[in-house]
Structure formats: C-alpha cells, structure tokens
C-alpha cells in the first residue's frame, strides 16, 4: 500500500460529508418529501412553448413548471431540444439570428417574452453555465468581477469581497487565491468550469441554468461540480441539461424527459417533452413507454 495522497486527504478533511453512492431519491420518496417538494413556489411556468430556428420548429408544445430551490434535470437523446428549451429560460435565443420563441415562458408570473421585457434584465436574474467552459481571456479576478462591474459595482473592497465569496461558493478559493491575477485560461478544465459557475453566481442570480456543465470534465471534476450544485441549491434554483442519466438521478429532484419525433407534415425532427415528474418516479416507475426505453438503455 502506498500512502494516501496528501492533497486528497486535506480535501476530504474539508468536506467530510460522505458522497452518495447512487441515486439519492429513487429509494427515498416518502410522503413528507413529496409534500415538501410540491409546496415549493413556482419559478418558471411554461405553457405551449415552441422554439423555431427560421422556419424549422425545433421544439413543440412544452408545458412545465420549475420549482424554487430545486434541481430540475433535462434528459433525452441528442437533438431533442433540451438545450433549446433551457435557452428559452433566459432569452439566449435573442442573440441567434432567426431564432424565435412562441408560447409563454412565465417567470414569477411575468411573461419573459412580453414586449416590455429587457433581455439583459432577464439574464441578470437568470444566469447560465455553458457546456464548454468559457472564461474570458482575462485574469481570474476580472472574470468574477466582470458581472458585478457591469452592474455598476466600482468599490474595490466590495469587488474583492464578491470575488472571494463567489470563489468560495464554487469551492475554488483555496486553489486559486494565490493567483487571482493570473490568467483564467491557465486553469484546468474542471477549474475553468467552476470559475464559470463562480462568475455566474457573482451577480447573485435567482436561477442558474446549466447546459451539460460536466460533459467536458473528468469524473473527479464532475463530482466536485455535482457537490457544488447540491450546495448551491439552498440559494438558487437550478435547471441542468445532462446526457448523463446517473447525474440526473444523483443531483435532481425532478427530471424532464425529452425526445425528438418526426413531424409528419414537415418531415423534420421536432423535440417534445414526454414526461416530467419527480426524479425518483421517472427512474423507478415512468409512466411513458418511451421514457422507460430510454432510461433502460433500449433507445437513444
């Protein structure tokens, strides 16, 4: 036997809680838990949402509610519109020429696509973490301070405080505190992704949207990001798109299964929401046959 790696040891001392070995909610769906999850306030209320890229209808007829301080996972095969629906939550389609959202995306009762709504105001409240870590080619400090500066924070002491707080919440502070003014591009992929999460929460959004945040990370970095999600849940509402069903089962309270079906009229593949329920329900006892086929690996 070799000695345990001191770095791993100190990390475990810092985070003593045991890692769950598998799906946390599959076996744990007591009535009290259901009642608690049900009573959470609704953050997003989607009705008849459709997203178009030009004439192509990418997603049709999505109806769902996203609840406060819970993690909602979107799963489904590639090209089924998970990311497309996620991006409609903070108006990220506005920057793609030709993209259009129909139907209603209500955020605390306000339609995000109403004529008076400013996309920048929306995005300030609803942050997003992308599939590929995308730090700015600036220093670590400037990456985190970017959002607060945009929102008018000029005070150096206040910025220092926000940077430290955000990096601590992203479990990154101890790794980078000595090189805050070094380039963010010199970090590892996992660190960059946690930096992007820290950058997102530095503007104190209410919702954090995550688009396959771990697909470019190795299992250790993935585990750290998942731990982070569980910690952030107390303060933020999280919606995560993932290709990894185990990940959805590990972290989320609710899961939505999307799939793509051939539209008879247009002969194009359009995404749709098949089933949306508690994660434990989706994985243990799905209502729809397509969901069952997908999670058992018979399709997709």
């Amino acid at each position, binding site marked *: 036997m070799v000695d345990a790696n001191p770095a791993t040891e100190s990390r475990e001392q810092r985070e003593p809680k045991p890692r769950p070995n598998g799906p946390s909610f599959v076996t744990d769906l007591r009535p009290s838990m259901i009642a608690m999850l049900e009573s959470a306030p609704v953050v997003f209320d989607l009705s008849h949402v459709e997203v178009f890229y030009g004439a192509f209808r990418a997603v049709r007829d999505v109806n769902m509610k996203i609840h406060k301080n819970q993690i909602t996972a979107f799963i489904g095969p590639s090209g089924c519109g998970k990311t497309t629906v996620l991006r409609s939550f903070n108006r990220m389609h506005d920057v793609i020429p030709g993209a259009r959202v129909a139907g209603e995306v209500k955020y605390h009762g306000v339609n995000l696509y109403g004529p008076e709504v400013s*996309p920048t105001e929306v*995005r300030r409240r609803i942050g997003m973490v992308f599939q590929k870590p995308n730090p700015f*080619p600036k220093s670590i400090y400037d990456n985190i301070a970017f959002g607060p500066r945009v929102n008018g924070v000029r005070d150096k002491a206040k910025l220092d405080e926000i940077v430290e707080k955000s990096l601590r919440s992203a479990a990154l502070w101890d790794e980078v505190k000595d090189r805050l003014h070094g380039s963010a591009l010199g970090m590892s992929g996992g660190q960059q992704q946690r930096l992007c999460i820290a950058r997102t929460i530095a503007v104190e959004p209410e919702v954090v949207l995550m688009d396959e945040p771990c697909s470019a990370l190795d299992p250790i970095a993935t585990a750290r990001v998942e731990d982070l999600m569980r910690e952030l849940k107390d303060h933020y509402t999280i919606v995560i798109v993932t290709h990894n069903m185990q990940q959805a089962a590990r972290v989320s309270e609710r899961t939505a299964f999307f799939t793509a079906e051939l539209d008879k009229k247009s002969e194009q593949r359009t995404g749709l929401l098949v089933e949306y329920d508690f994660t434990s329900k989706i994985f243990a006892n799905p209502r729809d046959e397509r969901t069952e086929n997908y999670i058992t690996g018979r399709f997709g």
Partner: protein
Amino acid sequence: MIEPSATPMLDLRARPSWRSTKNVIMCGVMVGAFVLVAIPLVAVLWSVISRGAGTAFSGFPAFFTKEIPNISRLPGPGMGPAIVGTLLVTLGATLIAVPLGILGAVYLHEYGRESKFSRLVRFMSVVMTGVPSIVMGLFVYVIWTMRFGYSAFGGSIAMACLMLPIVIGSTEQMLQLVPPHLREAAYALGTTKSRTILTVVLPAALPGIVSGSLLAVARAAGETAPLLFTIGAATQFNTHLFGGANNALSAQIFINANSSFAGAQDRAWGAALTLVLLTFAITMIARVFTARVAMKR
C-alpha cells in the same frame, strides 16, 4: 517458452509507392515556388541597401537631419524634411482611418450584419480597395488642395482613403474570429450588447486589429501617387499638419530618381533605404505589440 527469434521481425518501414514519390515532387515544387518569390524580394533589398547605404549613412546622421538641397544638382545629404513629412502625413492618415475603420467594422459585423445597408457598405469598401491610389490623390486635390493649398493634411486624407478599406476588412475579419461563446458568456451575465463589444469582443480582437491597422499604416507610408499633388515639395522642415507645403520620402524618391544629376539620384536611393527601414520599423512594432498583448492572456 517461445524463442524470440521464432517470429519474423515486424517490418514497419515505409513502402516505396507513388504517393511518397508525389510527396517528394510536391515538396520540391513548393521549395521552388518559395525561392522564386524570395528572389525579387532579396534583389530589391540588395539594390536598395547597396546603393542607398552609402548616401544614407555617410556622416551619420546628417542624411536624416539635414534639409534637402535647394538645387537638386548639388550633391550631399538631406532628407530630414521628407522624413518628418512622411511621419506627419502617416500620423494624420492613421488618426483618420483607424478609428473610422474600426467603428465601421464594428457596425458591419455587430449591428448591420447582413442588412442591405451593411452589404452595400462592405461592397463599396471592397471597391475602394481597388481604386488606384492616383485617383484618390486626384480626388483629394479637387476637394481639398484646390481650396486650401498644399499641406500634409491633404496627403493624410488621400492616404486615409487608401487605408480605410484595409482597416475595415482586417478588423471585421478579426471580429469574426472572436469565439461566439465569449459573447454568450457576457450576455448570460446580463451585459448589454454595446458593453459586451467594448469589454469582451474588442479586447479579444485587439491584437489582430492592431497588427492589421499597423500593416495598413506601413503600406500607406510608401504610397507616392496620392501625395504628388496634395502635399507639395518643401525643401525645409515643416512640422505643421495643416499649414503649408510639405514633403514625403516617397515623393522625394520619385522626384530625385527622375533627375539627371548624380547627387539627386544618390539621394533617391538614400530616401528609398530610409523608407524601407521606416516601414520595417512600423511592422516590427506591430509584431512586438501583438506578441506582448497575446502573451498577457
């Protein structure tokens, strides 16, 4: 136990084939093409240095600081006013063309995109690249010089007209190279479009924009035709951008090389060498600056 020698040696050497022969032939063709391209470059540099160095560096730095002899048949040094004039004209042109060009490119790439107006502007900018420089000179002669007389600024306008499409083109290309995920990151933080361009897109494209602009400067600095009838031919120092006739190295090369006097011809070669060194210096500055900025990230 199996004897190691029982298995035959694995042969991983390349097999002779038409593909590898083709590879050798194409390599030869490419080296030949490079040599062919390098010959005129080396020949130009050699003739400029061998004939210009004597004039330019005898009694250094007299050639760079003395005034141009009034009577062109007199031998002896003096290109100072032309050097000052070239720097002044180029500086003026840069101040006009670079900000306008960058703003234009930002409009075309970030706001106009594929709208009818921006397509028209982009098309006109391409057309402008093809306009002969003497036509630009004539244009400035008519709208500026005929009204206000010879001045370095007239040359600056003409030169700026030549630089503008280059700056627009290179800047737009650099903006296209900024990865879209950087913009998305900024938008997702609630940043407005203008702020995203100022704080994320332009800084990311800066090294490319700077080197593109400086290459335009270096190219314009050597232009002769637009200066011939816009700046005049002063033999004394004139450091005013707007007032009075000025001079430029390229114009001096043209005038002196046409002269039948040996002294003037020597000065033309000296001026040619000076101009080459000047453009070389500008290009080097561009490279060094770009490398510095790139290293910082």
